[in-house]
């Protein structure tokens, strides 16, 4: 360079210029830091709010747990009924158990009628249970009452007094009888949970 740079900027002016630039730089960095802090704070506050909401939902779920249990129990029962209906539909189990039939008949016995024998048979064609009852009745009237009760039950079909004769039991006159009836085992599932099942004692 032919002529060196002759700089007339006084050192105090240079310092003042640099100080202004430094102040602006610091101010800018401060503003950036402030904006960053506000951003982080807003994010944290938002996260805390979300956490509170999730905790409230969790508490509500815990509070509603018994109701859920009830629903679960109900659903389990319904599932059991449906499973049973499916098994019945598939023919894996009888729609009406023999014990139910025995219990039903026993409950229907008039006061002066007693059973002396009972035979239960299940046939596949047609799918039904054949019940033959032997017993004694004090009077013919009692026997008729018993027969009418049996015949009036939806679950029983073909109630017939096949034998009726006068007998003696412990020195008293009794009516010995034999009654046969059929219990149809074909059930129809109308819709899940409302299986139409023939039950003893139910009209």
């Amino acid at each position, binding site marked *: *360079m*032919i*002529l*060196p*740079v*002759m*700089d*007339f*900027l*006084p050192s105090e*002016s*240079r310092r*003042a*210029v640099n100080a*202004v*630039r430094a102040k*602006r*730089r610091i*101010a*800018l960095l401060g*503003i950036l830091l402030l904006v960053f802090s506000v951003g982080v704070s807003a994010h944290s506050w938002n996260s805390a709010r979300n956490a509170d909401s999730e905790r409230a939902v969790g508490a509500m779920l815990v509070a509603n747990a018994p109701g859920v249990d009830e629903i679960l129990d109900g659903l389990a029962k319904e599932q059991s009924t449906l499973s049973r209906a499916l098994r019945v539909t598939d023919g894996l189990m009888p729609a009406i158990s023999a014990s139910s039939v025995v219990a039903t008949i026993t409950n229907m016995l008039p006061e002066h009628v007693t059973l002396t024998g009972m035979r239960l048979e299940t046939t596949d064609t047609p799918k039904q249970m054949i019940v033959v009852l032997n017993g004694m009745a004090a009077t013919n009237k009692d026997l008729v009452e018993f027969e009418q009760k049996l015949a009036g039950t939806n679950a029983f079909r073909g109630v017939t007094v096949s034998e009726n004769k006068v007998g003696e039991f412990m020195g008293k006159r009794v009516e010995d009888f034999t009654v046969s009836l059929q219990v149809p085992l074909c059930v129809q599932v109308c819709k899940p949970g409302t299986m139409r099942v023939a039950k003893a004692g139910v009209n």
Partner: protein
Amino acid sequence: MRHFQNILTKQTTAIAVDFAADALRCIAIEQAVDGTWTRRVAFELPPAPLDRSMDDSALREFSAKVSEAGLNGCKCRVTIASHLFRMDMAQLPSSMSENELAASARFEATDRFGMNAADVMIQHAPLFCKTAGRCALLLMAVPLLIIRNATQAVMAAGLSPCSIENAACAALHGAELRHDGFNTGLIAFMHIEPQQAVLLLMKDGQLQSVRAMQGDWAVAAPSTEVATNTNDNSLALEPVVSEGAWRWSSLAEETLRCMRQACVESNLPTRMLVTGAPSSDHELLETFKGVCGLESVSLNSAGWSTGAEKLTSDTWAAALGAASLDFKNISSARAA
């Protein structure tokens, strides 16, 4: 937010503000890999007298222009019209240390210029000296008031001044970068401003002599401006309204006298390079050739840089020269 622009980024543009006598100029240039200077911004505003604070309306306009150009917060170099400087040459013993030389130069300058040392900013630069045991110095002084006003105006406009230089010296830096042949032989360089022409003589790449010639050169130039210079040191021009080439005769004759004083008669410069508004005046170059007997060439500073809009006058040498000093720093910053 304008105060925070360009604060955290590396500056890739060299910026200069020229407080010239005829205008306030601001230019932002970039240097391409092939050395081409590309103007990003260049604008001119009415002249800002630095003997007082810049008035508010001018400052607002300057600030708006800087802001519009997106230069807020950028560092810039400032040049001040040569007529605001006092300059002289001195010879001192070469045996002095740097500190002693600086102190002596300062003492010599205050003594010669008759200024209060506390009120001026004084700088010196070495000159080529033939006398054994002596060293020649260029002494320059400028009132601190001028410097403060310039600094305040630039800072108020949103720029950060990083140096203040004499316009003629800045123009020489630009010419040295844009034109070859400065390092060999005896060459004259003249920077013409409206109120002062500065003649710099260089020998083999070393500055040998500096002369400032005050005058109404704006009037001498083919323009409609009215002479306003009332300085007693101004050279008399007669008649100033002439269209003839000889209206430059005063400047040419004074230039010849300065060259004769600085050089041996038989060894005058053979070439003169001219910058400044009148440099595009063919009559000026012809006058120099006729009076001084040397080939005069206009450096055409308007063509030093390329840009969207062509610079209309040849008055950008100082601003371009000052800005070009930052290319090295910018390249280093880019490389980093």
